[in-house]
Structure formats: structure tokens, C-alpha cells
């Protein structure tokens, strides 16, 4: 039996003697492993991005939609159960449920905003004061929507910072008037920089009281209601209370859908994890290609080294020893190539992260082990045939350079 260290040294001498072949095989394995790790880090990055977005919402969020999931699509219901609107009064009533700490109804719409000669379309969101704390928005100048504006259609607005700059430049905006739709409104505050959140550009937004939005857009129906659970409150119990409340107010029907942030996040997680796996599988094809390359080059190597193999057998190597030498060669190549691939991929990923910090590019923890394992299995599988061929060589013929 050949000692471990001796096998390593013996294989090492082969690699040195066949530098080009060794380099090319290493490169193939490196590229394969690196592509798995790098591509999966895209998927994982997307997942982390979504995670981060959700966690910015606070972590005890419920979102209430009008209409039930089940009534969308499928057979039309026999009884008249068309989704019933959630009104502002419904939303405010939800705020009185003990385990709900904050409520923000949302009624968004586009409206024309103008000041002096400047005019453009803008996203106007009708809501209540709860929106600010619920979304973690800070007012940079002025104040948030007053509590009184929950019931009264006050003509006031809080502007996003970019919108304010476009309308007012560097002048003070708080206390000035703008026109939104057909109404004059007083600017009472300007939001701090929040950037984009959940696909909505918060810098370019006019926040107005919900009753004002109802008049402006001529509707009673809230688009959705955001609710924040109290710390330690039971989420299912709260959902049941919300449904009970809606049943009480809507003649026994609870025509609403409640989505918890956790379930939404779990759904996204699921989708993106599956996507990442799919990407990994595609990238793994390059490992398969590397495996086939190893097989081809090993076959060539076996026929070039016929005489040497014959000699080894003549001086006491069994077929098993010879097979071990050739498999060992592949294993070392794959091992070193994998290591290079992992190091290279992590290097690239961290470099990209530094260049582009907004997107949290990160290889999933399983990517490197999975890629290396795939590479090793593929390497062994594909070098099995050449190694077996080498082990089966007839030493006498092999040394004479005669093909069988």
C-alpha cells in the first residue's frame, strides 16, 4: 500500500511535469466552482435584499386588503358577496383593538400638484399620522399630519424631499401653499431622506390626510390598511379580532384578506430560495463540463503513460495501486481547483459588494460546500473510467508500447 504522503508527492511530480495540462484542468474546475458560488450569490442577494426591505417595515406588520383571496377567480359566488370596501371608519375602529398599536389606512392616487408656474403629476397618499411611525418616516422640517386630520379633511400636506426641492428649490416650503388636484393645501412638513421602499419612491410623494384624499379621489374605499401589532401580542388572535370587527361592521361578512409580514416574507424567501437552487443547477452544468474535460485529458494521459503504468505494475504495483494513483491525481486537481474557485468567487462577490453596497450580494452558506462536493463527485466519476483503464493495462504490452 502506498503511503499517503508518497502518493501526494508522486502526483505532484506529475503535475509539475505536465504544467499546461494541470493548469487547464485547474482552470476548468475553478471556473465551474466559481460560477456556482457567484451565480447563487445573486439569488441569495435578492433574498437578502427583500429581507432587508421587509425588516425596514418593522417586524410586527399586518396588511389588510378588501376582498377575500377565495373570491378572486373561481366560480362566481351564489350569494351577492362582492368585496365590500374597507372604509376609513373601519380602519379607525381597528385601532381600538387592544393588541393593535398603530393603524395606517392607505388611499393612494395620482394627482396634479402645482405651485406658481410649476406643475406635474405626483403620487398623493391619503393616510393618517400612524403612517409615519409605522413606516419609520421622519419629518425633517415641520410636523407630521395632525391627529385631528383623521376625521377632518384638513387641507394640509407633507412633501417628499425631492418633490419639495422641485417645487421650492432651496426656499422654505413649510407654511407655503401648493395646489393638489382642485384644492389648495398648506405644506406642514417635509420628509427626511428615505429613498425607495417596497418599490415606492418615498422622496417623490405628497402625503395628505385620509379624509382629504377621499374627497380628492371621490371614494370611500381604502386601498389597504397597515396595522402594527403590539410587542408580544398573539398574531392569530389579533387577526381573528380584526375579522370579528369587520363582521360586526359589515353585516356578518368578513370580506377581507389579512397578510402578515411574516407570511409574505416566507413566501418571498421560498420563491427566491427555489430560484437560487435553479441557478445553482444551471451553474453546476459547468462542473459537469469540467468533469468531462477531466475524463478526456485523463484518458489521453493514461495512453501517454502506458509505459510508466506497465513499469509500476512490473515493480510491484497492483491494479488497485495504479487506480488509486490516477484517482488521486483527479482528486487533487479537483480539490485545488475547487479551493481556487471558492476563493476567487468570494473575492469577486466581496469586491462587488464594496462597489455596490445597496445590493447585499452574498453566496448562500450551502453554495461553496455544494459546489465543491459536486466537483469532487463529478471528478471522481469521470476519472473512474480512465483509472480503471490504467489499472487493467497489461504490463508487458504496455511497456513495449503496444496497444491492446
Amino acid at each position, binding site marked *: 500500500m502506498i503511503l499517503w504522503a508518497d502518493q501526494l508527492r508522486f502526483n505532484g511530480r506529475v503535475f509539475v511535469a505536465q504544467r499546461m495540462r494541470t493548469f487547464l484542468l485547474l482552470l476548468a474546475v475553478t471556473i465551474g466552482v466559481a460560477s456556482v458560488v457567484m451565480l447563487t450569490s445573486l439569488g441569495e442577494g435578492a433574498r437578502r435584499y427583500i429581507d432587508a426591505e421587509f425588516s425596514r417595515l418593522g417586524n410586527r406588520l399586518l396588511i389588510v386588503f378588501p376582498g377575500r383571496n377565495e373570491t378572486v377567480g373561481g366560480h362566481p359566488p351564489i350569494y351577492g358577496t362582492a368585496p365590500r370596501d374597507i372604509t376609513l371608519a373601519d380602519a379607525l375602529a381597528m385601532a381600538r383593538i387592544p393588541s393593535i398599536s398603530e393603524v395606517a389606512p392607505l388611499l393612494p392616487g395620482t394627482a396634479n400638484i402645482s405651485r406658481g408656474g410649476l406643475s406635474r403629476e405626483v403620487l398623493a397618499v391619503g393616510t393618517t399620522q400612524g403612517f409615519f411611525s409605522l413606516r419609520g418616516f421622519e419629518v425633517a422640517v415641520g410636523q407630521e399630519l395632525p391627529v385631528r386630520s383623521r376625521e377632518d379633511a384638513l387641507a394640509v400636506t407633507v412633501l417628499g424631499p425631492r418633490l419639495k426641492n422641485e417645487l421650492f428649490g432651496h426656499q422654505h416650503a413649510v407654511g407655503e401653499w401648493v395646489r393638489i388636484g382642485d384644492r389648495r393645501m398648506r405644506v406642514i412638513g417635509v420628509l427626511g431622506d428615505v429613498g425607495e421602499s417596497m418599490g415606492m419612491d418615498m422622496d417623490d410623494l405628497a402625503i395628505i390626510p385620509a379624509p382629504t384624499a377621499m374627497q380628492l379621489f371621490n371614494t370611500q374605499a381604502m386601498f389597504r390598511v397597515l396595522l402594527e401589532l403590539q410587542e408580544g401580542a398573539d398574531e392569530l388572535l389579533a387577526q381573528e379580532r380584526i375579522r370579528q370587527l369587520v363582521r360586526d361592521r359589515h353585516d356578518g361578512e368578513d370580506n377581507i384578506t389579512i397578510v402578515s409580514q411574516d407570511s409574505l416574507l416566507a413566501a418571498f424567501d421560498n420563491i427566491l430560495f427555489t430560484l437560487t437552487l435553479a441557478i445553482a443547477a444551471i451553474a453546476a452544468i459547468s462542473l459537469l463540463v469540467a468533469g468531462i474535460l477531466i475524463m478526456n485529458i485523463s484518458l489521453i494521459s493514461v495512453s501517454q503513460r502506458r509505459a510508466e503504468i506497465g513499469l509500476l505494475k512490473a515493480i510491484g504495483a*497492483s491494479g488497485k495501486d495504479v487506480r488509486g494513483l490516477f484517482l488521486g491525481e483527479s482528486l487533487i486537481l479537483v480539490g485545488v481547483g475547487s479551493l481556487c474557485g471558492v476563493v476567487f468567487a468570494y473575492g469577486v462577490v466581496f469586491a462587488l459588494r464594496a462597489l455596490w453596497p445597496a445590493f447585499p450580494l452574498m453566496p448562500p452558506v450551502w453554495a461553496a460546500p455544494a459546489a465543491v462536493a459536486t466537483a469532487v463527485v463529478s471528478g471522481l466519476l469521470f476519472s473512474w473510467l480512465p483509472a480503471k483503464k490504467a489499472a487493467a493495462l497489461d504490463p508487458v504490452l504496455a511497456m513495449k508500447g503496444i496497444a491492446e
Partner: protein
Amino acid sequence: MALIELRDLNKTYLMGDERVRALRGLSLDIDGGEYISIMGPSGSGKSTLLNMLGLLDRPDSGTYQLAGTATEGLDEEARAALRRDNIGFIFQAFHLVNRLTARENVELPMMLAGISASERRKAAQEMLAMVGLGERMTHRPNQLSGGQLQRVAIARAIVMKPKILLADEPTGNLDQASGRDIVEVIENLNREGITLVVVTHDSNLGQRARRRIRMVDGTVAADEKEG
């Protein structure tokens, strides 16, 4: 009991469509310490006989006892081990591994036997010194002359202290002077007790052996012993 007992060996090869009977009922006893030459025309089966002796080939029928061990039933692993411990080979074309130094080439059989590096190194240096290459341990095969290469090969063949040294045309690729050197080296080994079997076309070399076997058509045609 003889060191080697061959009984009624038969071997047939298929060369293309033709069946070639390389050995026909060959029987032969070899005692420890003998010096034997095997001569004969091409195709007489002398190389096949050498491969049988070296456990590189298996007979179709017949028995081969090596140092009291019946070899027929042994698997590949056991045959490799038996070969490693009892038989040293030298070849016409030397068969050294070019990427390894002289010393590493000599160490190869010991490496295959799993002997530790320090022990190997000592033994290889001793063997190389014995064949007169003590100064060329770290030379590679491409830096050595033909005679030197065959000396390295001899050192490799005897490093495991085998009982039998099988030489297949050991001087075939060498000039006269180097050839004489090599013959002297292996004959010295024989004098120290190793059993030497030389296969050759060269009748000058063949005549030097104390026992001369002539093969024709896969069997022993003549078996002369000196004295």
C-alpha cells in the same frame, strides 16, 4: 525443493485471428542462486516464459510454485505483493520514470510497498553506490548515459532484496563497453546469491551463464548445465 517449480505450463495468445501457442507444456525447476540464460528464436516463447516467472502473466493451465507458494489461486493484489518482494526486473529499454531523479526511481518499489521515506532513502543511496552511481543520485534520466540508466534500473530491481533478478535483453540498447559493465554488475549480484535469469539473443552473453536453456516452439529444447 526448488525455488521455482514450473509444471506443464500452457499459454495461447490470440494475435488477430491467429492462435499462437507461446508455451506448450513447459516444465522447469530453478534453484536458488542459479545463473540461467534463456535463448531461442523470436516467437519461441522466451519472453512469455520470463513474464510467467515474473508473475506478469498467467498461464492457461499448469502450475507455478514460487518459494513454496502456489501462485495460481492468488488474486492481483497478492501477485503484486509477491512480485514486489521476490522479483526484480530489468528491461532492454531501462523504463525509468523521466520526471523522477535516479534516487527516486530506485525508491519506487519501496514506495509501492509503503516503506517510510527515510528508510527508502537510505536503501536507495546504498544501492546506487553499489552500482557505482553514488555521485549521480539527483540526476534525472535525461542527464544520464545508457549504461548509467541501466545501472539505475538494476539498483531499482534489487532495492527490495529480491531472490530473483529477471533481465530481458539487459544489454540490447547499450554499446559494447557499457554492456560488459552491466553484465559484470549483474553477475556480481549472482555471485552474492541472487538467482539470475537473462533472456537474450546475444549468444556471447548467453554462453556466460552456468545453465543455458534453449527454447523452440514454446518448450525447452535444450537445457545445458556447466560442470
